[in-house]
């Protein structure tokens, strides 16, 4: 776990599709590959189930980073779900960036059921990035902090 001097640790929500990335996360577990406990996984059937509302809600409630993991493009269990997710997330992230919110807090990564090592690596990297960015303030109070 990354702990700053102030004792702050990032809260990270990872949405993982049931068929590839969740299984990839399980594989990382069976391989005893370490990644920070800051990451908590929410299982969804497909990356296309991730509503931007969920992501905003997470930030609103104090998440410092949100990552969406799905099957590799072309490998979606539902054929095309991740293609839609790819466009949706690109647009959402772009919009957040446009509003001045740090890019590093959001990420999409394709992790197959066989990529336990990639899952662990991705999570380590992401936590590192979010850790450098520090606590999420912008997404919680865009108005008053002047």
């Amino acid at each position, binding site marked *: *776990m990354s702990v700053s001097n102030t004792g702050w640790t990032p*809260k990270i*929500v990872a949405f993982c599709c049931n*068929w*590839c990335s*969740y*299984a990839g*996360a*399980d594989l*990382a*577990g*069976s391989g*005893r*590959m*370490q*990644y920070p*406990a800051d990451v*908590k*996984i*929410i*299982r*969804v*059937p*497909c990356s*296309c*189930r*991730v*509503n*931007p*509302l*969920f992501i905003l*809600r*997470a930030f609103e*409630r*104090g*998440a410092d980073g949100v990552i969406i993991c799905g*099957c590799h493009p*072309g*490998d*979606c*269990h*539902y*054929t*095309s*779900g991740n293609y*839609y997710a790819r466009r*949706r997330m690109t647009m959402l992230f772009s919009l957040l960036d446009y509003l001045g919110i740090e890019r590093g807090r959001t990420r999409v990564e394709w992790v*197959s*059921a*066989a990529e336990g090592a990639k899952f*662990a690596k991705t999570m380590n990297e992401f936590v590192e990035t979010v850790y450098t960015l520090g606590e999420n303030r912008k997404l919680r109070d865009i108005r008053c902090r002047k």
Partner: protein
Amino acid sequence: MPKIGVFVCWCGSNIAGTVDVEAVSEAMKTVPGVVFSTNYQYMCSAAGQKMIADAIHEYHLDGIVVASCSPRMHENTFRKTAQAAGLNPYMVEIANIREQCSWIHKDKEEGTRKAIVLAKAAVAKLLHNQPLQAGTSAVTKRCLVIGGGIAGIQTALDVANAGYEVDIVEQRPTIGGRMAQLDKTFPTLDCSACILTPKMVEAAQNEKIRIISYAKVEKVEGFVGNFRATIRKKARFIDENKCTGCSLCMQKCPSKKGRDEFNMEMNNRPAIYIPFAQAIPNVAVIDPEQCIKLKSGKCGLCEKVCSAGAINYQQKDELLEREYGAIVVATGFRPMDPSPLNELGYAENKDVITSLELERLMNAAGPTKGTLLRPSDLKHPREIVFIQCVGSRCDENTNRGKPYCSKICCMYTAKHAMLIRDKYPDTNVHVFYIDVRTPGKNFDEFYRRAVEQYGVDYIKGMVGKVAREGDKLMVRGSDLINNRQVEIAADLVVLATAIEPDPSARSIGTMLTASMDTNDFFTEAHAKLRPVESPTAGIFLSGVAQGPKDVPETVAQASAAASKVIGLLAKDHLVTNPCVALSDELLCNGCSQCEKVCPYGAITYENREVRGPGVREVRRVARVNPAVCQGCGACTVTCPSGAMDLKGFTNQQIMAEVDAICL
């Protein structure tokens, strides 16, 4: 508020080692809604399950959270437990505190903290769960087998013998596959054709089996029990029902420059041909690239000599639409092309050949009628060098081949060496090897026989260079045991090339949404416990499509796949996943956005009278067909009004999880 029970599993020391299970179950007692919380050594054991059932009865639980291993492991187990105890199986949530907690964290305090958060998230979700009822869907009692090699044939025979219809779709003009090209089979050395062709005939004669050769599967829609496939049957320019396989046309055909694919292109064949004498169907096919009539309109000799009147130059590709309950992938393999390994000189030297080419050279029906003659000058080779592991076992950072062991090469090389020494005792045979891998019944005995009885010279080392000098091939390699470099003036060099999945596999995998590994082999649902099923329901794996294997293993796997297919087709109905999309007609705008993203065409629109508080009007609203919906949730995000939701993963459930994790 619903009454919830929490059950924390130790999984021996797997969880309890890094998570204070007692602390977790204590902490859960303070969570609103939780009326009972405990921990136990193995929740999945009979005693553990009884503990759950007892608690459900005693505390009148409305739902349970099991904090244990991944839901991919035991979600079903605990759902059944709950159901047996009178609870709706969908009132069960799993907190994954093993794979996603205890196994990845070393610090016990940290692991415990995380486990509590995960368990709380599961409770938060469960508070929004609704009991769900699974529906059913009918099963089409027919099986599609893609690939007509020994794997496909065996699966088809077994399924057909159980009384179900089977279609074999084979891309080549005949079934038989790679095994038909082999000369002898290890370790018994019986002739491959002698054991394969009776099976081919059996398949052709089985009235439940339909062989669709020279065809490919173009499109597959639907889901387990209800697949619909579009099959393109390529034009053979022959009426299959009329052709008698007399092969007169082959003799008369003036265009004889087609490369004989069956003989690994080592000789020519006519433009109209039957791949080999025992082909099934025993029907000719015209190669449109070679046929003079099809290319220039002149000739037409075959039409004149065909007494059956089977030739039809106007024949077009034909599209078949068929419905299936199960699909078996038996797409097989091909040898890797060793040309890029230029130190071995495969591209430049005719006398450097692959093992499959040697099979044809040794086969009585091959280009040399079974006499071993080297391709360049048709002389008897006196010195033969075999090189093993060509393109196998390579590091992925090199561009030298496959990372895996191709598994069959050690044995077939021993077979080749033995057969040559047996038939031509005056020929010296050397085998360069890294390791000799012979796990299998009577396999090592076989290899030892090649060495001890037939005097095959096994050299522990690899070949660095093959260079032509006059009519010899100078093979330089290392002899690690004797710590020297050796040079052999060989007449023939045989490369035991790696095998790779048939190039059609990738597109078939994509079409079936069946997952594949980085080498394009199909992935099994579980490496140990479900080795013949794809993770995609209704898709089964047979033969080398799943990974390198020899004939006996292929047949075993083919029969195993067949038994899984039979198990599926024997059911009249399948229980469908109740976690499907549902549209709230009071919120639905009827805007048709969700329909656009549904991969299954499960959403339709209808004008319906909508009744609600203060509402009574006819509106265009979306309707989800629960038998077709697979529950991906694409529609739920597209819907701007939030009318579309996904049962089992509702907006509220997921948001409750988000809140529990973030707070």
